[in-house]
């Protein structure tokens, strides 16, 4: 009557979603928590990389040439397994000077010729990688000279002593897959719980402050639910992407070759599963909020949604592989466990398909039921409503 806006107005669910995002982004606690998480991820990875990657420069004091030669070959021996290791030779005049160099810290150890071999002298200990390399080099040198004295060819003597390894399952996990799966589950769990509580809290607050009556008189209640789900899914996925980016940044800065290309596929699937699983869970959290009349009621009304998050959590960490396999294909909970499995091992395609299909079907069903329950309970205040009551409530 008074306004005839000819331009089609923005759909109500989008306005609701935008309002949710705006409200969450204004919350200081949310911003601080997210910033701290990003910082912990970047700093954690960079620090781990720094300590793992630090060059190990060692100095060994020697008095004579034979010892100096042993130290040089010790560097080659050591570098075969540890390319960050360098060993420098420090020439000193005598044993006393060598010992002094060790005590003063000018050298990490001293290699002294004894009859018939060598001894390693350290202060209060010898760095293990140095001791290992020196011992191996010294014993080889001794072995060579002994063999020469006895007139034996060392190469003949060593024949057949090397035992190579042949792996039947080349897919065998080296720790990276397990670690990735672990991170997947933890991140899903933390984000889903914190976002879930935000959804339930936001709905309960609208009921508690009674603003919901104005909202319900303005737009269909279904749009309010969809807007909540959409807004919080955007925030949660944004957090996942932000954390993944922080992880990638950390790896790039520290120069660690984490073999990301091996788990890249699992990461892509993770985001897909996250969106599907989160949307289904989000509607449950919204219902939990609608059943509450005040914030205090949330503890009990959110229990089912929390349980749905704890099941995969425990299944992954405490279940055997059969349990993991079953859970990874079950609707909704698969969203957490399947990508974690995928990071660890090759998962048959049909199992992934079952997990996705089940989750999509469950998501559609849950959102439908949730919308009905939401419509019936949102405007009812005064007391907490039980799930049983909500499901049998007549349309009003």
């Amino acid at each position, binding site marked *: 009557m008074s*306004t005839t806006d000819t331009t089609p107005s923005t759909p109500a669910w989008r306005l609701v979603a935008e309002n949710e995002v705006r409200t969450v982004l204004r919350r200081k606690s949310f911003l601080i928590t997210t910033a701290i998480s990003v910082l912990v991820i970047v700093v954690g990875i960079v620090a781990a990389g720094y300590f793992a990657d630090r060059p190990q420069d060692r100095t060994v004091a020697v008095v004579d040439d034979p010892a100096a030669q042993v130290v040089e070959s010790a560097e080659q021996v050591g570098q075969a397994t540890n390319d960050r290791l360098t060993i420098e030779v420090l020439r000193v005049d005598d044993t006393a000077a060598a010992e002094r160099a060790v005590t003063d810290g000018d050298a990490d150890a001293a290699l002294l010729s004894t009859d018939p071999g060598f001894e390693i002298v350290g202060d209060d200990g010898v760095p293990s990688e140095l001791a290992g390399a020196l011992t191996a080099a010294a014993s080889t040198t001794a072995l060579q000279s002994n063999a020469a004295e006895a007139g034996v060819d060392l190469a003949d003597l060593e024949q057949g002593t090397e035992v190579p390894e042949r792996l039947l399952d080349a897919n065998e996990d080296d720790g990276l897959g397990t670690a990735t799966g672990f991170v997947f589950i933890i991140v899903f769990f933390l984000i889903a719980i914190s976002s879930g509580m935000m959804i339930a809290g936001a709905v309960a607050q609208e009921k508690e402050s009674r603003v919901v009556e104005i909202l319900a*008189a*303005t737009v269909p209640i279904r749009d309010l639910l969809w807007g909540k789900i959409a807004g919080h899914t955007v925030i949660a996925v944004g957090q996942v992407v932000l954390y993944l980016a922080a992880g990638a940044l950390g790896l790039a800065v520290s120069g660690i070759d984490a073999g990301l290309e091996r788990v890249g596929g699992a990461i892509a699937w993770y985001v897909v599963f996250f969106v599907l699983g989160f949307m289904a869970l989000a509607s449950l959290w919204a219902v939990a909020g609608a059943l509450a009349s005040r914030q205090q009621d949330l503890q009990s009304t959110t229990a089912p949604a929390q349980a749905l998050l704890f099941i995969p959590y425990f299944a992954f960490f405490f279940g055997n592989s059969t349990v993991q396999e079953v859970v990874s294909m079950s609707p909704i909970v698969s969203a957490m466990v399947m990508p974690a499995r995928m990071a660890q091992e090759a998962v048959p395609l049909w199992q992934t398909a079952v997990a996705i299909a089940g989750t999509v079907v469950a998501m559609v069903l849950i959102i439908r039921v949730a919308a009905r329950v939401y419509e019936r309970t949102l405007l009812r205040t005064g007391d907490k409503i039980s799930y049983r009551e909500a499901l049998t409530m007549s349309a009003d």
Partner: protein
Amino acid sequence: MITVNHLSRVYGETTVVDDVSFSVRPGRTTGFVGANGAGKTTTMRMIMGVLAPSAGEVLWNDAPITAQDRRAFGYMPEERGLYPRSPIGEQLRYFARLHGMSAARATERVDELLEHFSLADRADDILDALSLGNQQRVQIAASLVHEPSALILDEPFSGLDPVAVDTMVDLLAREAADLPLLFSSHQLDLVERLCDDLIVLSAGRVVASGSVEELRSRGADRYRVEFASSDAAWLRDVRGLDVLDVDGTTALVDLEGLDATELTRLVVERAPVVEVARARPPLSEIFREVTR
């Protein structure tokens, strides 16, 4: 025009609203009065679609009302509600947009309303930081922000001081002069001052409705008689009159059989008269009468 047709609402065994029919016409401020529990809020919630009627229907311009029609209405629920922790400017813009306004127009309109309420410098404050009176103003702004096509206000004046009431009345006169406006109130003096039409509800039923003038003249044929100096008590002995009150030289009488001309002749013959005037009963009396 909002038309309510045979609207009923039943909770279990209790009928809260019982076959209620009335219209709210454009440009007519319509008061909705009745005791607590008479069914005013329930009726308003059914008009706004937040509660489904057990029977009956609501029409907007003679056609069954749609969600789209209601989206253009302004509504102030009995239990006030806004976002306590959001800046007021932002939430008013949000409401305007939910009602279908464009972003640019919403911003303009919010600035205009806040300016009018002298809250322009508080636009970025959260609602909880405002005094109760100002919170009430924001609540009213929320129902007006989208330039509504009709207004349904449930007890809009409760909790307002007289100055705030005047501000609000001015605002409604400016913003909603041409709109169908239905408001409920306990304050009959306010209703009397503001309303063109009146609907009186009692125990879920409409017991009186019509224009305020009509309703008041529907009351008894009442006159005030004032003599120059003589006592008015003798009127008690006149047939065809019901004397309600005598105070020295003045009396308040209801005509019962006698007509106004006969009354005038009668009193003028008896003693010097200052005034014989029609006395309209106050709304409160009509209210008591119809809800008895």
